[in-house]
């Protein structure tokens, strides 16, 4: 396959000097329809917002150390926590994964562009405008349960725009995978990351509009119906808010972590220098995980009631519900990780495995996600009284950090395709291990505190609710301190990663077109790729088209 060697950034910088050059560079980014730039904007912006939000998580963690001497105003506590939760999902998790996919997946498919690139750009700017409105609304005492009615309206409108932007970008991504594959690349031959991105995009298209439906009702009622606050009366509090909250809770948040599985299934065969063993199981594993989590939108209540008060029939019904919504996602992970582990074992047996940072990031993401899914198993058991405690926050933190870790891994793995440079190996390895430690530190103490009945902030929209019933005895200082430190470490990991990446982009060594000895089509083009990715369309005859061309015996 031949390509045009025209690095886009170099061409742009050669256009005109001085202020005009800066202006034209900004204009070219704002008006771009290049999927690589759109994806990079999603990734960069979501990383920047992640740092702020995780820093906020650290502040919230430290504030809980001693409730008698808290430094955050109790009235702003609920607002800050809802910003932490809403922000991490809609400003960090989803855009980070969506952005990586928009950047890379078209190249993996052998496509010259993504389908509807201008729609993807529209999605990006709509999302960013929505994020800006949401943050502005919080700054003006908006958000759920906010004191300023106009700011609450602004929050609802902003969140609606954010959701619309993500849905538009997801529709563009899904259309790309379904229509723009290279000749010969049937759906069962698409790379694992592209497959998980397709499932994520479809899941976003299916789930987020349901949340938008609740938002539209709440907005119209709040803005024009004259209700004073979302939780007042029967409208917002009793019936609508749970629908909104559903999109922010487990098991639905597991869906947003789908590309974590796709990413690890993508990098393990590359670094083991083997073809994926039981590749079909990888695709099925992603599908099982997604389907089980997706069905979470069909009903909110899938708990096991208080065992002693249930009849045998009700026990059976609860157990079936519980098993479907909570055990089946684990089956998906097991199926996928089974295939990935077999691939790794074949590499270990042949002594071809390379220990690289993207692999460690990928495993850190999967370990964290598996912890989240396993820890969530206990939440629906009402006898344990974990719902509403900090335990749920621990699970949520696990999910979010699994996505962040895999996201960092993805950026380091595809850095050659982003900017043509390689990120130094050793600092990256340290950051990967630090990130894994930070995620465990930020989450595990909350899981323990949950069993001590420390109340959480999930679902709380009124500040007083966080104070009423507060049991100081149930808030061990050490555990809350550890959580605060964990969030702080994760913020530092992100900052370190960004600094390292920027330094590598500026002064790093050239990566070469295929530095990892890759298996999929993005490694068949130059680093960084030309504007249209490829000059000639390639013909694909297997899921690992580049492996087919490499010397026999190397198997990769």
């Amino acid at each position: 396959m031949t390509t045009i060697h025209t690095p886009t950034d170099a061409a742009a910088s050669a256009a005109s000097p001085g202020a005009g050059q800066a202006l034209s560079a900004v204009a070219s980014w704002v008006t771009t329809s290049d999927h690589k730039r759109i994806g990079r904007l999603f990734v960069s912006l979501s990383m920047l917002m992640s740092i702020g939000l995780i820093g906020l998580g650290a502040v919230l963690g430290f504030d809980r150390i001693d409730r008698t001497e808290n430094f955050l105003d109790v009235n702003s506590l609920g607002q800050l926590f809802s910003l932490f939760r809403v922000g991490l999902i809609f400003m960090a998790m989803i855009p980070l994964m969506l952005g990586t996919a928009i950047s890379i997946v078209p190249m993996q498919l052998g496509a010259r562009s993504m389908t509807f690139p201008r729609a993807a750009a529209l999605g990006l700017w709509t999302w960013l405008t929505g994020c800006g409105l949401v943050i502005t609304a919080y700054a003006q005492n908006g958000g759920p349960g906010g004191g300023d009615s106009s700011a609450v309206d602004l929050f609802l409108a902003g969140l609606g725009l954010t959701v619309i932007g993500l849905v538009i970008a997801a529709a563009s991504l899904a259309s790309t995978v379904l229509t723009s594959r290279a000749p010969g690349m049937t759906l069962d031959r698409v790379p694992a990351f592209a497959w998980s991105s397709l499932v994520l995009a479809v899941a976003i298209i299916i789930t987020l509009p349901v949340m938008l439906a609740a938002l539209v009702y709440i907005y119209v009622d709040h803005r024009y119906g004259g209700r004073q606050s979302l939780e007042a009366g029967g409208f917002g509090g009793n019936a609508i808010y749970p629908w909104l909250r559903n999109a922010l809770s487990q098991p639905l948040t597991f869906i947003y972590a789908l590309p974590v599985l796709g990413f690890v299934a993508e990098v393990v065969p590359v670094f083991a220098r083997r073809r994926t063993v039981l590749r079909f199981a990888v695709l099925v594993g992603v599908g099982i995980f997604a389907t089980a989590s997706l069905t979470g939108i069909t009903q909110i209540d899938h708990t096991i009631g208080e065992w002693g008060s249930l009849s045998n029939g009700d026990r059976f019904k609860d157990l079936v519900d519980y098993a479907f919504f909570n055990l089946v996602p684990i089956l998906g992970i097991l199926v996928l990780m089974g295939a990935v582990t077999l691939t790794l074992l074949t590499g270990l047996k042949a002594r071809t495995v390379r220990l690289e940072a993207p692999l460690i990031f990928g495993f850190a993401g999967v370990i964290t996600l598996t912890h989240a899914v396993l820890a969530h198993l206990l939440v629906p058991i009402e006898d344990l009284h974990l719902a509403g405690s900090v335990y749920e926050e621990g699970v949520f933190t696990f999910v979010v950090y699994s996505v962040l870790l895999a996201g960092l891994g993805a950026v380091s793995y595809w850095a050659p395709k982003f900017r043509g440079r390689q990120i130094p190996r050793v600092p990256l390895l340290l950051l990967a291990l630090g990130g894994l430690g930070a995620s465990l530190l930020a989450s595990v103490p909350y899981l323990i505190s949950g069993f001590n009945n420390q109340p959480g902030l999930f679902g709380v929209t009124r500040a007083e609710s966080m104070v009423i019933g507060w049991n100081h005895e149930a808030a061990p200082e050490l555990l809350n301190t550890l959580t605060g430190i964990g969030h702080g470490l994760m913020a530092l990991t992100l900052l370190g990663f960004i600094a390292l990446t920027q330094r590598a982009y500026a002064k790093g060594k050239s990566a070469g077109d295929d530095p990892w000895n890759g298996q999929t089509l993005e490694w068949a083009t130059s680093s960084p790729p030309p504007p249209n990715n490829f000059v000639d369309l390639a013909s694909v005859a297997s899921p690992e088209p580049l492996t087919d061309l490499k010397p026999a015996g190397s198997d990769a």
Partner: protein
Amino acid sequence: MLALPPAPAPAPRRQMIVGTAMFSAAAAMLVGGMTALWFHFRSEPGLWKPAKTVIPEVATNVMWVTALLALAMVQWAVYAARRGDRQHASVALGITMILGLAHLNSQAYVWKRVELPVRGETPYNSMFYAITATLFVLVVVGVVYAMVAAFRYIGGRTKDRETISGLALYWYVLAALHTVVWFSVYVTK
């Protein structure tokens, strides 16, 4: 850089149809979610429609029939475009647009006639406007889509039948969604 074997010309990609299907799926989930919430509230006693409110049923039924007629027109456009009949395809697309505008006009008429303030004693008032306005916006998208398809076709892209097929798919979904809203909001109330 590795050289993969060059590929033959790719098969038709049907991007417009797949893209429209994705957008339609999102629209269906949006309206589906709103309808589910509508029935959820409707089932709660003491929360629902004010006794004095009268829905102008003739106008709402005409609106529904208009949506079905638009569906017939857009299917006619697909049929004509497939046969290369530019004149009939253009007429069908034009009528689809006009019927879409008529649908919007009917909705505005219903809002005027129903004499229901947005601010009410129960959530019914605001929910009524939220769900009907959402459908209104989706119909506006359908009209704009028809306009774009018509301009492209009349402008000479007569072989671009995929856009017209995508438009037809969207109007099928729109008609189905309108039927759901019509039944929920105007028939069972």
